[in-house]
């Protein structure tokens, strides 16, 4: 069945098809529509699942983790400030090794406080132990939610998984989505198996206990790391099975028109579709340029990324996030990966744009492509660039004048 729906509704469909048992909730823009949709279906009986409103995201993540540790399939959702409020538990719950899925609808972080998207929130979770998948279309949202359950519950993995979708641009934007049939999803996603984690009489267990000393602590941390790395293979296998059943292929790293490319954009999330459009325009003008789009961010798909970028002479990494004092996160991860693999891509340029949902217009993609091409010709890596125009500066200065009480 094909239907026009928002990214939030697509996420809700993923939950419904996965036959989730338990959804602890807390509202925050721009994800709230997900839990409202689930609540609506619960009311009509289309969803056989328990929904509970917790009083904070920190509590919500705790309830998600303990419910999973008791042996049920769990889903939850949040964004931005909520994700950060839950951050203690984002680090804690992976160590419990009870899988569940968290959809993050990404939104720029305070300060300044805003509602529109970028990736600083979800990237703050990159070292937490959660696996991380990034959707660029509403179809991908639904598909990745199903893949996330399958991946997290894989016996070699057993870790919670974040599926990220961009606020507003995906969460509230309608795109056509193919909804798979429930019976087909059941074939892809077997019933939840606690795999030995439960609370039952006659088999008492102590979970999340303290350890004394770095030796046992290191052991359990290394185990979680190895499990996250095992997710690379597990994702590939799950994606292959998904493709067989649903005729849609998902890769850890998507490559678009890279076959004979010598230049590439590297970009994640919904804005990467703007980069695809830019690639098409540039190709029409004879450029040999493509897009490399990481879908899996944790575990970091080193091999796939290296393979995709190896032939390139120049790469523009476009980060929709900013670490003040350092630059874009993806830029650093790409550089480290290439260096470690001994791949000396001549130019890996960093660009930061799209913060708080600021648009990246076609002219800017052209400018970035030109910048990288010039750098390739000059043989020198340009310094990282922050995308902003003279008109935008004037606009902001106008706002400042008003705030300061000056006449414009």
């Amino acid at each position, binding site marked *: 069945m094909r239907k026009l729906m928002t990214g939030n509704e697509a996420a809700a469909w993923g939950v419904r098809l996965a036959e989730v048992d338990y959804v602890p909730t807390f509202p925050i823009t721009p994800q709230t529509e997900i839990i409202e949709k689930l609540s609506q279906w619960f009311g009509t009986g289309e969803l056989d699942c328990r929904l509970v409103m917790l009083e904070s995201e920190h*509590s919500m993540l705790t309830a998600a983790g*303990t419910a999973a*540790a*008791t042996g*049920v399939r769990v889903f939850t959702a949040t964004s931005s400030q909520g994700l950060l409020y839950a951050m203690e*538990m984002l680090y804690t719950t992976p160590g419990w090794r009870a899988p569940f899925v968290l959809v993050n609808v990404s939104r720029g972080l305070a300060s300044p406080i805003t509602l529109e998207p970028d990736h600083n929130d979800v990237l703050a979770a990159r070292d937490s132990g959660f696996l991380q998948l990034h959707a660029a279309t509403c179809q991908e949202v639904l598909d990745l939610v199903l893949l996330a359950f399958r991946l997290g519950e894989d016996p070699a993995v057993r870790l919670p998984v974040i599926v990220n979708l961009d606020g507003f641009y995906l969460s509230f934007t309608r795109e056509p989505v193919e909804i798979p049939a429930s019976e087909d999803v059941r074939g892809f996603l077997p019933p939840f198996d606690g795999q030995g984690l439960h*609370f039952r009489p006659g088999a008492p267990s102590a979970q999340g*206990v*303290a350890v004394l000393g770095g030796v046992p602590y290191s052991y359990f941390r290394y185990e979680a790391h190895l499990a996250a790395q095992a997710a690379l293979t597990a994702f590939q296998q799950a994606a292959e099975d998904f493709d067989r059943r649903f005729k849609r292929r998902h890769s850890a790293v998507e490559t678009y028109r890279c076959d004979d490319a010598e230049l590439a954009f590297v970009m994640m999330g919904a804005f990467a579709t703007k980069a695809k459009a830019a690639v098409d325009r540039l190709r029409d003008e004879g450029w040999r340029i493509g897009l490399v789009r990481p879908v899996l961010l944790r575990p970091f798909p080193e091999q796939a990324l290296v393979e995709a970028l190896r032939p390139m002479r120049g790469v523009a990494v476009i980060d929709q996030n900013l670490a003040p004092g350092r630059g874009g996160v993806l830029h650093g991860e790409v550089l480290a990966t290439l260096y470690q693999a001994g791949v000396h891509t001549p130019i890996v340029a960093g660009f930061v744009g799209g913060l708080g949902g600021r648009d990246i217009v076609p002219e800017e993609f052209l400018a970035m492509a030109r910048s990288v091409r010039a750098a390739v010709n000059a043989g020198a890596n340009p310094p990282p660039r922050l995308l902003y125009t003279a008109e935008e500066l004037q606009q902001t200065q106008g706002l400042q004048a008003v705030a300061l009480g000056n006449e414009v």
Partner: protein
Amino acid sequence: MRETAYKSMKDLPALHLLGGGTPMCAGCGGLEVVRLFHDILGENTVFVNAAGCMTLLATYPYTPFRGSWMYTSMASAPAGAQGIRDALDVLIAKGRLSPRDDLHVVVLTGDGAANGIGLSATSGAIERGLDFYYLCYDNEGYGNTGYQTSAATPHGAATATEHRPGGVPGEKKDLFAIWVAHGPAYAGTISGDEPVDLARKLETAKARKGPKLFIAFTPCPTGWHFEPKESVHLSRLAVKTGLWALREYVDGKVRHTRPPAPAGRRPPVEEYLRLQGRFAHLFQPRRNEAVLADLQHGVDAYWEHVV
């Protein structure tokens, strides 16, 4: 008197479901309460723990409980209890767990988390009508970190972060009153030194569905600076002086189960204070008459208003 299975000490179970050899301080007043709770509720119990002294009961690879245990965080043990309770309900409703195999869910928390960082999660769980037990061992400070001032530290006490001459200027937060304002299924204050009273309260609570909340008076040799062997004596004095009110809230009413003797016939609060190093500054080098009077007055005023 209500129908009860616990008429005297003889009726108390001695299953010892809580094993010995844990790294709790000698004389910890909370340990006896946890032991009684576990024995009365039985093996089919899961303790959901908030960060505090008792977190160290279970350290890998050992646990002293016959029941189960889930450590969560400092702020969110009640939310952890929510997740477990809901998951058990789902498993039972979907036929994946027999109703016979249900578990009691018990939050185990110190006063620090209960009165402060965990108050929001506690309030939320009570407001949602969660069917769970909540046991707060109140040693009147952040014990596990070395006894710093918490919202439950009484007026006049010294702590690791309170060195002013008069001790803590504020008043102990009335957590019981906060809970009662939520209208829970049950709320009670207990003491390890009054085990029959404790058992009856737990029995009353057990018969009800919903939030069943307990604060246990917990003498703390390490934080209060007294000899571990004085723990029981201190508990007795706390009740006899009227300083620790043994009360319960059930069916919409608060009643006191072990009121002290009337003013003039009950021991002065000083007798209790003198035994603890954390109140030594009220006696040496000079008596702090103002704070001592405050403390006695506080107790007298409370019981004057009790019907």
